[in-house]
């Protein structure tokens, strides 16, 4: 399976636990400020709750939990709305970054030393000038965890 992009593309960036993540602009629907969350008891751990997106009920996934980072220190999370195969899903992130242009020349596979949980969800790493950008595999991120 070829998970590493071979073409230049635009990525939307966001920050989780101090790292920079990116996702294809085409996969994103919109970005929202913190929304009232309805907790779902007995739900899988990564599900933080439900939000009301203009009449649609959207499951919010805690990216910190999903990627194996410690929980957020009270700061309100931003919603990155992405389209899953059965409706919209919100990814809760710490902060939203810019849209950046990345070149296929700067790409590398995720290092083997990364935490296993996170590595599974990272398609590749872009070496930007000042930092590393981790390209998130949206499909896997919002998939069920066995």
């Amino acid at each position, binding site marked *: 399976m070829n998970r590493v992009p071979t073409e230049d593309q635009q990525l939307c960036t966001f920050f989780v636990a101090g790292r920079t993540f990116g996702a294809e602009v085409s996969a994103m629907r919109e970005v929202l400020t913190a929304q*009232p969350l*309805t*907790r*779902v*008891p*007995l*739900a*899988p751990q*990564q*599900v933080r*709750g*439900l*939000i*009301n997106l*203009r*009449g*649609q*009920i*959207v*499951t919010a*996934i805690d990216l910190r939990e999903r990627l194996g980072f410690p929980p957020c220190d009270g700061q309100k999370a931003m919603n990155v709305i992405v389209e*899953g195969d*059965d*409706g919209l*899903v919100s990814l809760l992130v710490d902060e939203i970054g810019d849209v950046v242009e990345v070149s296929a020349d700067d790409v590398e596979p995720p290092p083997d030393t990364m935490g296993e949980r996170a590595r599974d969800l990272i398609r590749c790493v872009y070496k930007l000038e000042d930092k590393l950008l981790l390209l998130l595999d949206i499909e896997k991120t*919002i998939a*069920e965890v066995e």
Partner: protein
Amino acid sequence: MSDQSEMDEVIAEFLVESKEGLDRVDDDLLTLEKDPANRQPLASIFRAVHTIKGTAGFLAYERLQSVAHAGESLLSLLRDGERAFDPEVATALFATVDALREMLAQIENTRTDGSKDYSGLIGELERLLKTSAEPAADSVAAAPLSGPPPGPPPGAAPPRVTASAPPAPPAPSARAAEPAAAPPRAAPATPVAARSAPPPAPEAASDDGGERGHDGGAGRPPGQAAAATGAGGAPAGETSVRVDVALLDKLMNLVGELVLGRNQILQFAGLREDPAFQTTSQRLNLITSELQENVMKTRMQPIGNALHKFPRLVRDLALICKKQVRVEIEGENTELDRTLLDAIRDPLTHAVRNSVDHGIEMPDVRISRGKSPEGLLLIRALHQGGQVTIEIIDDGGGINAERVRDKAIARGLITPDQAERMDESDLVNLIFLPGFSTAEQVSNISGRGVGMDVVRTNVERVGGTVDVTSRAGQGATVRIRLPLTLAIIPALLVGQGQENYAIPQLNLVELVRLEGDLARRGIERVQDAAVYRLRGNLLPLVFLDQLLSGNGSRPAEIVDREVVNIVVLTAEERQFGLVVDRVADTAEIVVKPLGKLLKNTAVFAGATIMGDGSVALILDTAGVASCASLTSKTAKRLLQLNGQAGADARKDATVSLLLCDLAPSRTVAIPLQTVVRLEEVPRTALERLGDSTVMQYRGDILHVLDLGGLLLEAPTSDELPFRLVACRTPGGRQFGVLVAEIRDVVNRPSIAPLAVPRPGLLGSVVVENRLVEVMDVARIASETIAFAGDTEVAA
């Protein structure tokens, strides 16, 4: 690429139209069977089959075309009166319709009309064509008429359009293409051109609205022509448009969003003192509501769409069973959400099939029972209290409750002991139990039972209920009740901790609130399970907070509480109580599905958006029951006991009575059926009007009966509120009864009459070893209030 998709679109349209056409053909054939002299259905059948044939030719579906063609040939003969409509013809035409349907289905799936060989059917149709002239008693016509149809065997060139358009002189109105296409068959037809000339015109008649002015040769044609013209000239359905359901769903969602937007704007409008803005937002409000209502309506379809296939189905079944069955359909315009319509098609078919197969008796049996040999199957749909009720009523033998009982016992579904406690209606409804019906039973049981559990499962899946009633020797009624729409359901809102949850009212039995002492002592234990004694029966309890914290399966801790709210629910025929923090309100909620990440969370059936925009989860009653391991052994046993007790209670209880104290230590009972609601009213709310006590109640003046003389006895300084029982007389008049305390509701088999009748008393019942009088409050009220009412009217 785009050509391909265009073609797909054409084919899809063809399929939809053809199916609709065939559905109508079924109906028309049935009409014709009853009334062979009626020409109108014939014309309509002909048109439908002809259209299919034409389009099939255009799309190069040769098999389809050849079958349609053979059918059409026979039809044209029928229409021209050359052939009488008899059962043989009917069967062949029904078979043709089935074959066409089969091929359409094939086309839908594979885009080809398949490889099935229909030459048998075509042969049969042609044979009927050949024999056709005999009933016409015209020996000259026989040969020529049978000539053309056999000529074109299946698989001939597509452009050939009709069998019955020989190039005879009097057919100038036939389409120009026909003569050119027809030559192969022209030869056999020519010898008798003089006689066969009139029939060829049907083509023209059906296509062009019947501008045929040249039929005069054959015996009956004039009247026929008129009928054909009349039918052909009536364009139906021009005011409707075909719309994709997905588009309607999208519209529905958008309107939902619009409503939320509207709500916010209204909030802003309330905050600002700008009259122009307020007027505008009010208009927006009205328009949005109306829009929402109308968009909802677009999803509604008349139930007739699901029912129209039954006359045909029953006809076929009756033929197979050698029974005579007449089908009547009532209320086919009753509207239902289309998703529901789809969901009930199968269960309905099942139920109808059962009625014909097992319900209605053989003609000789019916005669021996003094009934008409023809059985009646009535399918009735109606709106009833926010629900749609569909009844399948037959006048057959009914269901033999004893046999059902024996079978259920033999299959281990119930114990003989349980059976002993069940009354006939309980027994009859055992046919819905899974495992009751197997193929083996069909022959063993004279009643119903083939896959009725499937019927129930399917109906319950869409939030409906089904039951059956039977009248021995007179028939049975299967009653299916459905919500109007899947999208919006009435729900009870309960609060637990910070959150609100919705519980579908379908599963709600009653609400019990325990206060003070009762709250502390009311909850007891049976081994691990917490229970509450509800009118003498043990009700297993589930604590919502523990359930949601993931401790649902652990023994419930009984915490001291000031107030305990128990929501009594049913799941799979069993009752249990759900203990919640708060009972908030009832609301109509829009059910939204949960994402796939939450699909495995069995406790929730979905989510909904509340008026304030927040999201609330919908509790799934069955899921709650299983999560709380109500299926564990102890609980199961308990539930079983309760189930029996419940059945007992139902069996015994014919009168429900409200127990209340008229004065301290004077308890009376009021028949529950007269009670509308219970209220608590402050003393200040009561006013005097002439001689009577009244209060303002929900915008009306409510007369209040003070049977216990509470107003006189109570100290005047007492600010304690009264309990008020709002009742209704049989005439529909409301009145109130002042009582000191409301005790309980009890069920009693009957009310013992008084030895010496006294006005205002119905009799007495025994409650906790004491005799309690049952007040005829309605009578008392109508006597006293009628008097007061006159003066009131005068005032």
